[in-house]
């Protein structure tokens, strides 16, 4: 919960339109937990005005560095991608709840759709540090968008790939692939449609799982009520929870999908 002007240590275009930026932010790096995000001021003028929520993708605590992995979607992310080494970026965070680390026997299973690997990679780093080996289901449109496979394997995890075009691995969605052998404690992140399907699979198979959601954000600190999602309310149907402070990570069973 800091406001920092963080210096860019490195900015790489991983694939056209996909960037990884590494920032020097010592206190934030120390505090960060997997699943949390930073609220990033991509520009410096009044346009664009709002911060952009981006998941913490990787952390190097010794060096006090935090990495973000992001896709250019609109003006905010485009401005961020235009920043070079040495420039500063104002960060607010770490914000939000993180993933619950697995306890006891249950095997950790990570299911990521596309850019959804962003927060899960940090989780995989932490699992690795805990000597926990995870099964990682990676889905993408095409093989090139299966990101960080070597790094994930180097962390000691096992990868199962799915591509929409069948260019690598299973030909179909990552949830379809996971459904073929559904087991373990699931950590999911990806597009809304994918998460909805994943939560059904989790439910049908009586698994435990946590999903990281996205919603448009104003404040990022729970004050404006713009980032809500529907969650189950004991007794009377649904209620609105704030993705920024009640999430972005929610137990899979709590999210009410439209």
């Amino acid at each position, binding site marked *: 919960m800091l406001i920092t002007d963080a210096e860019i240590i490195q900015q790489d275009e991983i694939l056209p339109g996909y960037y990884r930026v590494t920032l020097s932010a010592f206190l934030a790096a120390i505090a960060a937990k997997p699943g949390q995000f930073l609220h990033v001021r991509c520009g410096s003028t009044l346009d664009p005005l709002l911060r952009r929520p981006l998941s913490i993708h990787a952390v190097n605590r010794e060096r006090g560095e935090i990495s973000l992995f992001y896709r250019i979607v609109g003006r905010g992310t485009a401005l961020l991608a235009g920043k070079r080494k040495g420039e500063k970026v104002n960060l607010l965070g770490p914000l939000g709840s993180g993933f619950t680390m697995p306890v006891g026997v249950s095997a950790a299973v990570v299911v990521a759709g596309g850019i959804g690997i962003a927060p899960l990679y940090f989780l995989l780093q932490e699992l690795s540090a805990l000597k926990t080996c995870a099964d990682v289901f990676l889905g993408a449109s095409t093989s090139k968008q299966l990101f960080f496979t070597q790094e994930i394997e180097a962390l000691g995890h096992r990868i199962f790939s799915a591509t929409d075009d069948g260019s690598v691995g299973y030909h179909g969605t990552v949830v379809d692939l996971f459904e073929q052998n559904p087991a373990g404690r699931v950590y999911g992140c990806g597009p809304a449609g994918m998460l909805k399907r994943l939560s059904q699979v989790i439910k049908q198979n009586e698994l435990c799982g946590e999903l990281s959601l996205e919603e*448009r954000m*104003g404040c990022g600190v729970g004050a404006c009520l713009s980032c809500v999602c529907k969650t189950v309310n004991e007794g009377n149907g649904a*209620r*609105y929870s704030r993705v920024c402070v009640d999430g972005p990570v929610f137990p899979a069973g709590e999210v009410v999908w439209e």
Partner: protein
Amino acid sequence: MTAPSKVTAENKSINLVVNIGGIQMKNPVTTASGTFGYGSEYAPYIDLNRLGAIVVKGITLQPRAGNPTPRLAETPAGVLNSIGLQNPGVEVFIEELLPRLAGYDLPVIVNIAGETVQDYGRLAARLDRAPGVAGVEVNISCPNVKQGWMLFGSDPDMAGEVTGIVKANTGKPVIVKLSPNVTSIVAVAEKVAAAGADALSMINTLLGMSIDVKKRRPVLGNVVGGLSGPAVKPVAVRTVWQVYREVKLPIIGMGGIMTAEDALEFILAGAAAVAVGTANFVNPRATMDVLDGIEKYMTEHGIQNISELVGAAQN
């Protein structure tokens, strides 16, 4: 974990105290309702005690779930919101949320919204009995469900009626928050003043919308929303200027204040106090930066008392 709140070398020769219709504020900087939650959300970032007052998110009689998402859209130098007054209702507010502010040394102003004129009266009465409420701010930019969903604030007479019933039901200072979506904000302000308001706050959001050209649908779940942020500042400053000339009530000015300079525009136009809204989202320390900047301006320009600046551009 946050930076220690900056204790200003309180320049003893500077007097920042303002009185807004009976609410004594140690300085003119407060928060815009709905942008600052119930206060504690920003406690990690700023020392709440340095605020002149705090205005909390709008409260209704019954709990409200609010509008469908998306509730927020960014626009050029602005933000559209359609939160839909999500809140837990006045009872939960008084029992659970209000006590969290008890430890702070600052006036708490409660923003209220109703669907009928009676709602406003009941809310005022209920809050009158609640400890720790310094005053109420009446949000009249809500539809009157009994009268064709017309907004209370868009008709001078309805605005006056709401003001009257609130005044009748509380002994606490009543601030009425004006909507800019009217032909004559002065006409509304005059009726509200005649009905007994102790102060005015302005402006609430401008009615706006955005369309997603890829989806060919409105961006907001609620179709239309309220525009706030720097984009609206010229409209807001103009309303303060106009109303200050015609109505002799203290004004809390707001609409796009990001910096001390912005706040000073409102003060010079006639606002006795200022509220920081959307800016909190961009800079959680915006209220403090505004306060520090006002002090600096006063020191640099040899202004002893903030009151010397109020409306000074009118002369």
